[in-house]
């Protein structure tokens, strides 16, 4: 079974390559569907496959850049990417990320930064999950009220409408982002992306997990456009991260390319699935993924608090994350297949009807 292993030229370890492809498929599906890089899923996966931690992060970021490019290409064809908004937000993201990264270095000198970072991460995830599920509850209430009044809610109607308050701030220049269908002060997306970039810099994550909901709830993007635009940003920031980590000698390109084979397939599945799932379907699944991520961080904190049970809690966190990736990937894949089947059947029926008439 030696052929199932490939020797990594830089890291010098033998890795089970089908595992890399499977990981790529899973993360490709989830990344293409939710619009994020998914470093929080890949790093523990690479570690399990035997990657030294020193190479896991850099390799993950390199693969993330390529995978996001594949997803952005597909989302772009669907009309889900607002490139102008993505570029505007990129400025805030880069500056915010660097401020956050510098701040962490300053905090490191004070000490105990790791513990506080995990707590901040946990609070942030709890806030995102609360935001998503209170939005869903509010939207359902609106639907019930509309049904009682005998009217139907608009296709793009949402529960939480915080973005409307932000849109009322008219600091010039005002910009119309056509794909996202929003008219907003130029400074608002810059400010929001600065805040999300700053948080990502402090937490040491890519930021898709924060930026995607921020695009929905603060900027007012439709869910599908938020997913596509965020992937565009992940692609550019991923390349930037690849450069920084590779320069430090922490990227295993061979592994990243093997993962990309799986990610190319996964990204197509995840992206096409967004065609068959409405915005709130994506939001609810995203909320559940955030809850899973938060629980895994609780396990990590418990491992530090109770060192005697450290291994058990650490393993539980990894199993939870990988189980979540598997479950979500299967769900998204099934929905994509069902949607494609229905579309093909409808096309055939329409062709038959046209031929009969």
């Amino acid at each position: 079974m030696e052929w199932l292993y490939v020797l990594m030229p830089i890291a010098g370890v033998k890795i089970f390559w089908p595992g890399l492809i499977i990981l790529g498929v899973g993360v490709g599906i989830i990344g293409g569907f939710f619009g994020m890089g998914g470093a929080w899923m890949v790093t523990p996966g690479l570690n399990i496959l035997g990657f030294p931690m020193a190479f896991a992060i850099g390799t993950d970021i390199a693969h993330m850049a390529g995978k996001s490019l594949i997803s952005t290409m597909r989302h772009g064809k669907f009309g889900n990417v607002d490139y102008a908004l993505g570029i505007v937000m990129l400025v805030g993201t880069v500056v915010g990320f660097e401020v956050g990264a510098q701040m962490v270095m300053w905090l490191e000198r004070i000490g105990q930064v790791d513990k506080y970072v995990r707590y901040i991460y946990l609070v942030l995830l709890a806030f995102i999950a609360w935001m998503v599920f209170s939005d869903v509850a509010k939207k359902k209430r609106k639907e019930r009220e509309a049904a009682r009044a005998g009217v139907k809610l608009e296709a793009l109607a949402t529960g939480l409408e915080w973005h409307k308050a932000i849109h009322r701030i008219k600091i010039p220049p005002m910009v119309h982002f056509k794909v996202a269908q929003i008219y907003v002060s130029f400074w608002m997306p810059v400010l929001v992306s600065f805040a999300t970039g700053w948080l990502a810099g402090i937490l040491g994550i890519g930021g898709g997990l924060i930026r995607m909901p921020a695009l929905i709830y603060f900027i007012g993007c439709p869910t599908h456009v938020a997913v596509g635009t965020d992937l565009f940003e992940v692609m550019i920031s991923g390349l930037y991260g690849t450069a920084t980590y590779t320069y430090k000698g922490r990227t295993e390109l061979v592994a990243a390319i093997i993962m990309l084979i799986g990610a190319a397939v996964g990204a197509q599945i995840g992206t096409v699935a967004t065609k068959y799932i409405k915005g709130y379907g994506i939001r609810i699944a995203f909320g559940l993924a955030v809850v899973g991520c938060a629980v895994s961080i609780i396990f990590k904190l418990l491992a530090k608090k109770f060192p005697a049970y450290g291994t058990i809690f650490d393993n539980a966190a990894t199993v939870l994350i990988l189980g979540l990736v598997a479950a979500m990937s299967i769900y998204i894949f099934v929905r994509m297949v069902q949607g494609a089947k229905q579309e093909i059947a409808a096309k055939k029926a329409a062709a038959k009807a046209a031929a009969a008439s």
Partner: protein
Amino acid sequence: MKMKKLLTKITGLAALIFVLAPELALAAAAKAERMVIVADTRKFKGWEAWWTNLYNESHFYFTLLTVIIIPVVGFIFGCLADLIMGRIGIDLKSRELAEH
């Protein structure tokens, strides 16, 4: 036109950040441990040996090549996967934008 001008300015600004602030750019990776890793070239032949040698000799060129290879490979794989998906028979160019 105004929008176009604004976008050109923003793109220029973004490029400036990348070009003029390499110190800032590298700060993101500063959290990585400061140790020197050397790849063992003795185990490899051909392109693998060349690749590991490049890693040992110049991280700059190694980075440059990695940053070029990743999007190129991503683009090629994306196009291939696109071709395969196109054969399924579904519409891959439009979707209904709806929240519920």
